[in-house]
């Protein structure tokens, strides 16, 4: 027998729920140590460095 689930008002995502915030929170669950921000740049071949 399967169970019947009732979707209550509390179960529904808020109208202004943020998917981006939820995704970031999940991502941060496995975050490492704090290092500070990192800056990255790439020289291009045509720069002839």
């Amino acid at each position, binding site marked *: 027998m399967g169970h019947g689930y009732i979707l209550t008002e509390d179960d529904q995502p808020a109208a202004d729920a943020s998917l*981006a915030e939820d995704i970031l929170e999940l991502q941060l669950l496995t975050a490492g140590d704090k*290092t500070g921000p990192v800056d990255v740049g*790439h020289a291009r071949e045509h720069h*002839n460095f």
Partner: protein
Amino acid sequence: MTEKLTISGPADLIAIVPHLLGNRPKESFVVLTARRNTLGATLRMDAPAAAAPLDYAQMMTTYAANDEKATASYVILYTDETGGDGPFPYAEHVAALSIELATARMPVRQVLLVTSAHWGTYGTAERNPLDAIKDSQANATLTYFGSATDIDVYNPALLGRWALPVEAPEGTDEDLEMACLTWQAVLDADGTPDTETARALAAAFQHRHLRDYLFRDTITTHNGSFGDVLTGKFTGRPNWARVDRAEAIAFELMKVVPAGQRAPMLSLMGWLEWLKGHGSQADRYLKLAAEDVSGFRLAVLLRELINNGHIADVARNENMSYNRRLI
């Protein structure tokens, strides 16, 4: 462009770093990867506060190893630390980094030390004036051809002191469609939007659900997945001119709302800077966002991600990443 920029010495090498990164490092380690006679990637990390030398060196080397063609490297340490008990600052970190980079087949050709008073070869008594960097051939050439460092879209003096608050839409499907269409039209047009359009967009940015879509649709090469877009995984090279324009427009939208409603736009600017590889600038904008609206959730989370040393996927890839304007 066919102009040739020749790096003929350490002063030239130090001079190009701000042009490549868009900021002048302070209390930082910088690694430049090299391939035969050309440079590859440039990486900047905060000088280690408490990180163990090996941990720090391995992390920096992992970032440098994104340049699969690198065959050598240069290390530049920017600091006013004097070295404590030892003769040179961060000596254990420099040693560990040299070993790790060599192990990763990027042996270090030279380590340089830059302080606020002088520069020289690390581990020696050499003291050269900073003017030698400013007056270097590389700096003169890059500046002549229009490269500018420390460019900042955000100028608080231009924001004005007062504006009527906007009211966020309800967030219906129609609101979402309208907001996305308007955002696209503004990004595709020239000039700045009129006040009515700017306020409508600024209002849409106040709604978290609509805001997420506006963030996503700033990038045209996305696969639809918010997770991929947020972390910079794209289906092709982003239209970086459009990204630059989005940042400029975000600042325009900030002008038409009062303090307390600017956080979403500052967050967009921070996220876009991070996609470009500019973690420091991103962190600065996101900090401002979290001050504009105390604890603004999106900005707080993005800051945490960035301060954990995450680099956007797109910024790691030399063929997809942002091109600073150089010769």
